[in-house]
Structures are given as C-alpha cells and as structure tokens.
C-alpha cells in the first residue's frame, strides 16, 4: 500500500527546511533577512539550508542592488511549490489518520 509517509519529500522534511519552504510558500518572494527572522535561525544556518533547497531546484536566489544595499531575495520555484503542496497533503493524511494503522502508530 502507498502510505502517505512515502510521499513525504526528503528535502523538505527536515524541520528547518520545512519552515523555510513554508515561509516562502506564503509569499511571492522574501528577503533573506526576513526569512531568517521569520524562521528564527542564523544567517549561516539559513544560507546552508537555502543551498540545499536551491540544489534540489525548490528555491531561486536572486541578488539585486538597491541603492548602496545588496539584497538577496528568495522565492520558491514552481517545483518547490508543488513539492511543498504534496508534502503538506501527505502530512494532512497522516495527521488525520487516513492511513493504515501500524502497531507502532507510525
């Protein structure tokens, strides 16, 4: 049987990456510092996780200069949005117990 947990996305599943993707899913794009503050992590931790998401093709990084300030903007790609939606759907099925119950409740 196809258990919803098999449809959980391995890249998004990690808690910090899940939060980053959730934050980006709610907006068109957001500045690096805004995502950092929203997810409550450090610059280096966000940078590391964004690299993983970028390599997976889920996040697009855009660097622009406005006046004297260099700004880094993050956005989910179409693939990233689809993967997150599918991941959340699978979580919803697990949470609602719409699946086969195993002895350990997993």
């Amino acid at each position: 049987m196809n258990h919803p947990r098999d449809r959980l996305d391995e890249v998004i599943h990690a808690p910090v990456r899940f939060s980053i993707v959730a934050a980006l899913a709610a907006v068109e794009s957001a500045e690096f510092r805004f995502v950092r503050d929203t997810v409550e992590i450090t610059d280096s931790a966000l940078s590391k996780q964004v690299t993983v998401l970028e390599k997976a093709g889920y996040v697009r990084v855009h660097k622009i200069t406005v006046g004297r300030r260099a700004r880094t903007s993050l956005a989910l790609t179409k693939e990233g949005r689809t993967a997150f939606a599918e991941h959340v759907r699978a979580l919803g099925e697990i949470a609602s117990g719409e699946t086969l119950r195993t002895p350990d409740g997993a």
Partner: protein
Amino acid sequence: MRQNEAREALALARKVESRARSGGGWYMGFGLAFGAASCLLTLTIGLYPTPWAMGLAMGLFWVFLAVLITWAVTRAVVPRGFGRLHGVGMGVWGLAYGLVLLLGTRHFPQDPSWWVPGAVVTALPLLVTGYLSLRRSRNSA
C-alpha cells in the same frame, strides 16, 4: 512519522506561513497613499485647471510616486500574487483616471458634482487591490 508529529508539523507550517504572509501587509499602505495622491491630482486638475496649478499638481504627483515606488521596492516581502493584482489595479486605475479626465474636461469643466466622485473613483482601484492583498495576508492557508 507519527500522527502527532504530522499535526505538529502542520501547525508549525501554519504559524510560519501566517508570519510570512503578514510581511506583505505594506501593500495596503501603498494603495492608500496612491489612492490619496490620485484623488488630489484629479481634484486639482478638474477644479483648478490653470497651467500653474496643473503643473504643480503633476510635479508633486510624480515626485510622490517616485518616493512611493522607492519605498515599495525596498519592502522585504512581495505578497503572493502581487504581480497580477498590482497589474490589474494599475490597469483599472489608468482606465478610470483617463475616463474621468476625458469626460470631465469635455463635459463637466470645474463641476464639483463630477470631479469629486470622479476623484474618489480614481482612488478606488489600488485601495481595492491593497485591501485584497491585506485580506489574503490575514487569512490562513
């Protein structure tokens, strides 16, 4: 993954999404400011159609618009669906502004009964898109 873990993950997602979405609330302020400027510009052009008054109003409007756009592009969040929403808002504004000016200058010169409601009409498009964006930013996913 257990049921309670999935529930916790979903609750976390909702919390983070809500926090991120609220960052796009600035667009309501943009809509209010643009609407007010458009309203004043239309009233000045319609009720005081002298070259100096129109020139002053147009000049101030463009300066204000430049400041407003600079402020907007430095916001940390671009709300979901912003491009389409703002594009439609500006398109409707252009149409409304053009019609109010065209009909007003031809048929209702300096007539407050045309220019006051007309000015309000030009303020509405971005007020509506700002409100829609704000409502979207307050609703959960």
